[in-house]
């Protein structure tokens, strides 16, 4: 299961070109919107997801309560 999630993540990182040094460089000289778009979408969906899980106390697939450890 974790291996599969990792593979999906790896494919995403490569396909989105997020891991490319060139893309990171381009982001910091503000010549590309690409990475800001990626992180914006992920953040937007992440907030919604986290708030819904907290509000409705959604249980994990194994029936355990979901905790968000503070950073």
């Amino acid at each position, binding site marked *: 299961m974790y291996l599969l999630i990792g593979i999906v993540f790896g494919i995403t990182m490569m396909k989105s070109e997020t891991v490319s040094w060139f893309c990171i460089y381009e982001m910091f000289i503000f010549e590309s919107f690409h990475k800001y778009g990626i992180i914006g979408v992920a953040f937007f969906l992440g907030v919604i997801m986290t708030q819904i899980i907290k509000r409705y106390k959604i249980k994990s697939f194994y029936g355990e309560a979901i905790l968000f450890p503070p*950073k």
Partner: protein
Amino acid sequence: MEWIYEPWPWYVSGVMIALVMFLLIMVGKNFGMSGNLRTICSICGAGNKADFFKFYWKAQRWNLIVVLGTMIGGFIVHDFLMLEDAVAINSTTIADLHALGFESAGKAYLPETLFSFEAFSTIKSFSLLIIGGFLVGFGARYAGGCTSGHAISGLSNLQVPSLIAVIGFFIGGLLMIHILFPLLF
């Protein structure tokens, strides 16, 4: 079937990252890559020297498996799902990088100047890699997370420390590219 070789646009990639986080949350875990650095140090016995590494690392084995999967995913894409290595970057950026001596800009996935076996042969790139690796490892742990842990997981939970960390990452990146980088190359 041509589309399968194309890079993904940002809105697809963003959704996929959120999906990965969703899956990890729903199996009762959380999304964060750099926590693995601490786990690996503990496995290597760092717990004997510092209390920070004295924790039950076996409970973190799932995250190492995620990293293993991430690497496999990278290989799958590189070997089966892409035709050319070049990443789609702006032509102005390519010109800038060429001027700085990065000839592989616009032709490769990573600059050969820094990431190749030849990079070990010059003192400059070798030491940059070592210093960079040290700073990434130290910084990600000192801050309690990296881009995935703070910018994605932490910000999604509306955590102020994560926001501070992300602003810090960004300032660091800007300083590097605009001030240190021209000095180095």
